[in-house]
């Protein structure tokens, strides 16, 4: 089966800055795929290259087998992109905006589908409102609607929930999940890792323009350990036992300056008691203890730290 999105060895430089350093990713049809990375990792550059907004220096990008440069008409017809920036055309109301966007994709008389999108995004009451009069959240919904007017089989959402309220997030994810269930391929970038963890079947992590991890969400979550032991203590002995001190917010640090949280991963439960024994023998008093599963944030931090250490070693 043809990949929904095929990205092969894509390189993009902006002057001396290498934004993409040979990125290769294949996304299958029907996938809910996450693209994660810190700011400046190259996520938006990669998406912009896929959408034809940026021309890569080398490499090939295809949407359902259509090259985004040589066969741009078909590639763009198959792709719907929700841009990261909150942009709008102040001359038009919501319905006009969506009709015009339909026309750009060669679609006439699209009102039935436009009405359905408006309803699903809770925009029906705003259909005749000028774009200037809408709140930020409403404008974000219109951006999503614009990306969907031509019923693209591949939908790219570039941080669609950045700075929006809980209600919109829930409405949006409900709608996007339904689109995915209907067979649309979804590519999502987000800084909300819990969203990516609950939605995405597969995830690629980018750093400095390179793919540093690419696997199913399940495999990523069990990549470093299947469980995590967290404990709070006033002692710094856990460091000598190989535990990692958690980063704490400044205000938390001042409130609880005498104790801090430490974590370590383990594969089996029978590893816990020996670890606790070592902690006790070291004379460390445990104030609080938790055992849980690692979340995507833990994995993300570990991957980024590993990458950083590798870079330091290479330097």
């Amino acid at each position, binding site marked *: 089966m043809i990949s929904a999105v095929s990205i092969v060895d894509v390189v993009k430089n902006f002057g001396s800055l290498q934004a993409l350093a040979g990125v290769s990713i294949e996304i299958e049809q029907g996938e809910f795929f996450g693209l994660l990375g810190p700011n400046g990792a190259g996520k938006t550059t990669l998406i912009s290259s896929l959408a034809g907004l940026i021309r890569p220096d080398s490499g090939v990008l295809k949407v359902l087998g259509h090259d985004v440069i040589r066969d741009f008409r078909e590639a*763009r017809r198959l792709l719907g992109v929700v841009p990261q920036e909150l942009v709008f055309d102040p001359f*038009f109301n919501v319905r006009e905006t969506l009709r015009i966007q339909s026309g750009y994709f060669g*679609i006439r008389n699209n009102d039935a589908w436009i009405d359905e999108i408006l309803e699903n995004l809770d925009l029906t009451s705003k259909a005749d409102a000028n774009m200037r009069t809408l709140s930020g959240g409403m404008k974000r919904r219109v951006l999503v609607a614009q990306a969907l007017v031509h019923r693209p089989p591949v939908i790219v959402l570039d941080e669609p929930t950045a700075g929006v309220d809980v209600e919109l997030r829930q409405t949006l994810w409900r709608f996007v999940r339904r689109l995915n269930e209907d067979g649309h391929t979804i590519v999502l970038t987000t800084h909300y890792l819990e969203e990516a963890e609950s939605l995405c079947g597969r995830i690629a992590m980018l750093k400095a323009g390179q793919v540093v991890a690419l696997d199913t969400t399940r495999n990523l979550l069990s990549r470093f350990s299947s469980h995590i032991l967290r404990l709070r203590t006033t002692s710094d002995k856990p460091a000598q036992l190989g535990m990692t001190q958690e980063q704490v917010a400044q205000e938390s640090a001042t409130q609880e300056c005498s104790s801090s949280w430490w974590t370590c991963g383990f594969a089996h439960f029978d590893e816990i008691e020996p670890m606790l024994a070592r902690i006790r023998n070291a004379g460390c008093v445990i104030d609080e203890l938790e055992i849980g599963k690692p979340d995507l944030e833990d994995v993300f931090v570990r991957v980024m730290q590993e990458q950083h250490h590798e870079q330091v070693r290479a330097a």
Partner: protein
Amino acid sequence: MNYLFTKIKPSRGFITLFYKEVLRFWKVAAQTVAAPVLTALLYLLIFSHVLASHVEVHGVPYASFLVPGLVMMSVLQNAFANTSSSLIQSKVTGNLVFVLLPPISHNEFFAAYVLASVVRGLVVGAGVLAVTTWFGSLSYAAPLWILVFAIMGGAIMGTLGLIAGIWAEKYDQLAAFQNFLILPLTFLSGVFYSIASLPPFWQHVSRWNPVFYMIDGFRHGFFGVSDISPWVSLLVGLLCLVILLLITLSALKRGYKLRA
């Protein structure tokens, strides 16, 4: 195959972009149509009041001579303003992405923007003609020339506006383009005078101004007399249009300043 002109057949994307561009200026018609008509009317009132009883040009009363010049100046300036302001606004606000994401080719992009600018130029020109025609006795010696030069002039300035809009990254850069290039070119093109009245040196300089040929050819359509043969003006206009068209299409095809 790597053609500059990829597809001539108009697509729905092109038609929609053209419609959107026309709708955009029409929604703010007070600013984009009525205001330039009023400006032209004020020019006519002031200049004809001061000079009408003193001057005749090519045997035509000054007020009558002035009307076609003002009409054509309005066509040219508004055609330029339409493409340039639309593009810079879209670039600055970021909504150009809505035009760059769909399957619209660079040829369609060019044609839609320029055609809409011609429409705005013609609408404003017709408005100026409607309100100023009472101030002078106009004849319509060769209506086809009037139409040809109005459309060609609008297309040239619309294309120039597209170049300015592509090149400029800020409003002040566009204002510089407008104030230091477009305004002198239109004001020193024979709108308010015949170049035959200028000293030989300035007559020679005027002949290097392509806008002069647009105004002169357009005026020929009304009075049947002009400083230069309308065929020469047509040739110069077409040459300018082709050069600007090739520059613009090349920039759009490369995505210059539009696609990073």
